[in-house]
């Protein structure tokens, strides 16, 4: 307990007077602080007044006092961002080289990767996933199966003009018929085709389905785009039906849905939204994810 005594005693042992404060029998000696210490203390107070004048300090109703040098941390950020943009611009200048040249130049490639990764996160990850892992209906960009081709040029073309973008003359476009909805195939025939496709991919087929009609149905309806053996055609964005990768699923339900109502994924034409060097960086990044050819 702190006690205050009005009369200041003198400590018998040291001969120094006490401050009169006592805590549980322990008394505080009065050792005077040096005056310079007090001076510095006052000086810091005066210094702080300087801050009020120089920097924004006092809150007003809707704003604050601005300070005479007009400092704002917002300006710092604006300056840093401007600097960054300037640096990016000079780096982007390097990205005017061809895709192959950039890929061959380690320092340009590094810039493209950094930029591509950032742009991918902002624009592509929403559908394709953060690492381009894809999902049902959204292609995995890490694997080696490409609907429209996986070379640098093909990827660039796809990114630049998008897929099934109305109004872009060079967009990737094809249309699989909705065999069921349009009455081209009857439900029983769809079931046969679905089973035939599974057989092409080496997957087990349903029991009790007459597969004998499969080849004929496939040849008439599907082979034009997917090829006789179902290996697909990149010119038409027709997927290879025989490999281990599928975009919409190879189970009976998914296949039936695909054959009945068709599928037609879309992707924006990034050339309309991003500048040419950014599209290039994006191309190189996507190409580097693992599937680039």
């Amino acid at each position, binding site marked *: 307990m702190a006690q205050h005594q009005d009369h*200041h005693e003198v400590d018998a042992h040291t001969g120094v007077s006490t401050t009169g404060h006592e805590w549980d029998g322990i008394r505080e000696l009065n050792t005077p602080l*040096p005056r310079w210490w007090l001076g510095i203390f006052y000086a810091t107070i005066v210094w702080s007044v300087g801050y009020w004048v120089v920097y924004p300090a006092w809150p007003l109703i809707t704003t604050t006092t601005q300070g005479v040098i007009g400092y704002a941390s917002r300006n710092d950020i604006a300056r840093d961002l401007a600097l960054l943009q300037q640096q990016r611009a000079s780096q982007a200048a390097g990205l005017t080289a061809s895709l192959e040249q950039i*890929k061959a130049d380690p320092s340009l490639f590094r810039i493209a990767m950094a930029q591509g990764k950032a742009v991918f996160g902002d624009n592509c990850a929403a559908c394709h996933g953060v690492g381009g*892992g894809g999902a049902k209906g959204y292609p995995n960009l890490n694997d080696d199966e490409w609907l429209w081709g996986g070379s640098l040029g093909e990827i660039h073309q796809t990114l630049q003009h998008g897929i099934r973008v109305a109004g872009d003359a060079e967009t990737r476009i094809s249309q699989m018929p909705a065999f069921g909805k349009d009455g081209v195939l009857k439900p029983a025939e769809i079931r046969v085709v679905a089973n035939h496709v599974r057989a092409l991919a080496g997957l087990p087929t349903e029991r009790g389905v007459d597969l004998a009609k499969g080849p004929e149905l496939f040849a008439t309806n599907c082979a034009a785009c997917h090829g006789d053996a179902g290996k697909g055609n990149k010119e038409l964005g027709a997927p290879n039906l025989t*490999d281990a990768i599928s975009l919409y699923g190879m189970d009976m339900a998914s296949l039936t849905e695909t054959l009945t109502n068709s599928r037609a994924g879309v992707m924006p034409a990034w050339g309309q939204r991003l500048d040419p060097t950014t599209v290039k960086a994006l191309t190189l990044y996507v190409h580097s994810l*693992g599937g680039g050819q």
Partner: protein
Amino acid sequence: MALQETELGDLPLFAATKKVYPQSVSGRYRRAKWLILGLCLGVYYLLPFLRWDRGPNLPNQAVLADLANARFYFFFIEIWPQEVYYFTGLLIMAAFVLFMMNAVAGRVWCGYLCPQTVWTDLFLTVERFFEGDRRERIKLDEGPWTAGKVWRKTAKHFVWLMIAWWTGGAWVLYFADAPTLVRDLATLQAPFTAYAFIAILTFTTYALAGIMREQVCNYMCPWPRIQAALTDDDALNVTYRYDRGDPRVSVKQAERLRKEGHPAGDCVDCRQCVAVCPTGIDIRDGAQLDCIQCGLCIDACDNVMEKISRPKGLIAYDTDDNVKRRIAGEKPVYNPLRLRTMIYAALILVVGGAMVFQLATRRTIEMSVLHDRSPLFVRLSDGSIRNAYTIRILNKRPDERPVALTVHGLPGVRIEAVGVAATADLRPVVSVAPDSSREVRVLVTLPPDIHPEKTQTITFTAADLFAGERVTATDHFIAP
């Protein structure tokens, strides 16, 4: 009590500082202090100019903190930012050495090694050169402002500022190539930070060593408080041996008293010990927080004892317990080797040994592996499973090195690095620039006919293609 109170009255809460005028002194401890001062300042001012050849790709300054490239060089040692634990180790050692010093002989650091003490000593020497010794300085300060006083004071402050400026200048030389920076500083082409740091350190050196002096130790430094808690009954401290010194009488009186068979102390109350004390205290009052234990009062008193033909060592490194023992007629006890000091010594050896071991076995090639978070695995068209990793390879050598990557732990597994050529036996070879690191995207593919566990541990090996030095790192291979 009541009487004392009225007599002494209340002390104020604040008081003007009394200026201390330390007198010059000669002797054993003063000599030791000169030696240490010369050594410390010599090293500090000249070390940045020492060269050390590290080959064409690295700086050739023996001691350099290269902030721009995030490297620290100390002779044959080069430290990367992730190796700051060497500094942690050094700091731990420094702490134990300080504890040890304290347990053996008190504030050795304060009295002899502390920059505050060393620079204050230097500044005092300059002061003495221009203004004379204690008595002359007191007289000068009390006297009127004559032309001579103005000249002496101006010259002193000028030289102080020069030393302070050069102290700040030497500091920045540790952060850039010293000869280049000296030239840039002289031609006003050095970076602004260099000038700013020199200005700040000029000010602090001038203020702390020239003006604040003992006030720094008394009011600003935490170490005196810490050391007060570190000392113990066996630690040697600068001690006035009152068993020998008291009662204090003049030389003549002492002679008379001794003749008459009365006790007489050796202290002649000449106050030489107080005059030389850089903090202006009287050691005869016993151990005090203000005493930096520089030993100068020992020298002063020894000189007096020599003059009056009494044995030296009235003030000496000793313990209060020994003084009491002698009064009780017992033998003094000295215990430098006691449990506490031995534990400190052991800890210093352990930490030092660990650091030396770490340094000796330091690898010049390192690797870190980061598995892709998304997607965790990729199925390829032929059914193989592929995992992707980001691998960073560090090359701590001053030459470019080709580093071959291999992977083990799964049968038939293949490794490739994006944009990196491989050897004939399909090991990607990443060439890493001198003294830097490189990040590569690495794809590990498992053939379709192998069905692995959901997660399996695999081991990456990075090996210098020619020198053979290798490191390994493990990570997971994830399958559906």
